[in-house]
């Protein structure tokens, strides 16, 4: 049986609740089990990419965790362009070392191409 393709959708901002962290942990767990998922940051999930200093509130820096994804085999991050623009984030200003950032104009078509979708 061919391996199923997995997409993880991260649509919540870090720190306000546990979802963003749980999503990243699930992605790392999948990857460690050789089921490397595709990752889509959409809606408030795009806030994960902002430079941040979570020590100020005693939390783990989730952007740093995100930066570990290429080490786990996730080398591309898909970003919803509309979500970025709605939040006043200029895609040209974004970067994450070792990661290719791919802007999506049509996230719906992208999502439809997967067998399994995990949403966080």
């Amino acid at each position, binding site marked *: 049986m061919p391996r199923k393709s997995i997409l993880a959708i991260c649509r919540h901002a870090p720190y306000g609740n546990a979802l963003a962290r749980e999503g990243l942990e699930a992605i790392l767990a999948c990857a460690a089990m050789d089921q490397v998922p595709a990752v889509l940051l959409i809606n408030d999930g795009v806030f994960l990419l902002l430079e941040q200093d979570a020590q100020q509130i005693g939390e783990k820096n989730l952007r740093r965790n995100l930066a570990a994804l290429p*080490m786990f085999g996730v080398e591309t991050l898909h970003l919803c362009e509309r979500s970025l623009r709605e939040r006043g984030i200029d895609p040209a200003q974004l970067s994450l070392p070792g990661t290719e950032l791919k802007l999506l104009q049509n996230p719906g078509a992208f999502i439809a191409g997967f067998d399994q979708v995990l949403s966080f």
Partner: protein
Amino acid sequence: MENLVIEGREIPLDKEGFLRNLGDWSPQVAEALAAQENIVLTEDHWDVIRLLQDFYREFELSPAMRPLVKYIDQHLGPEKGRSIFLMQLFPPSPAKIGSKIAGLPKPTNCL
């Protein structure tokens, strides 16, 4: 697991032998943790321990096996960035045993 005693100071460990307080780590603590695993630390061990600590500082998480191999490959070259090299240094589970001796938390995705 019994706590370590280093130079009269008691260092608390969790039930799997990981440091309870990451700030307790020192090279002597590493030697003692390695001894519990029947490992005598060599230069090769120390290279990997330093990279494990760099990995943790850079990404705020302990690596599983694959990312560890990749990171070692990037920093020490393909000769050492191989699971067999790491297996020889930190048997039987290099990500877990290496993280323990380097004073990192247990890798989250490590079985």
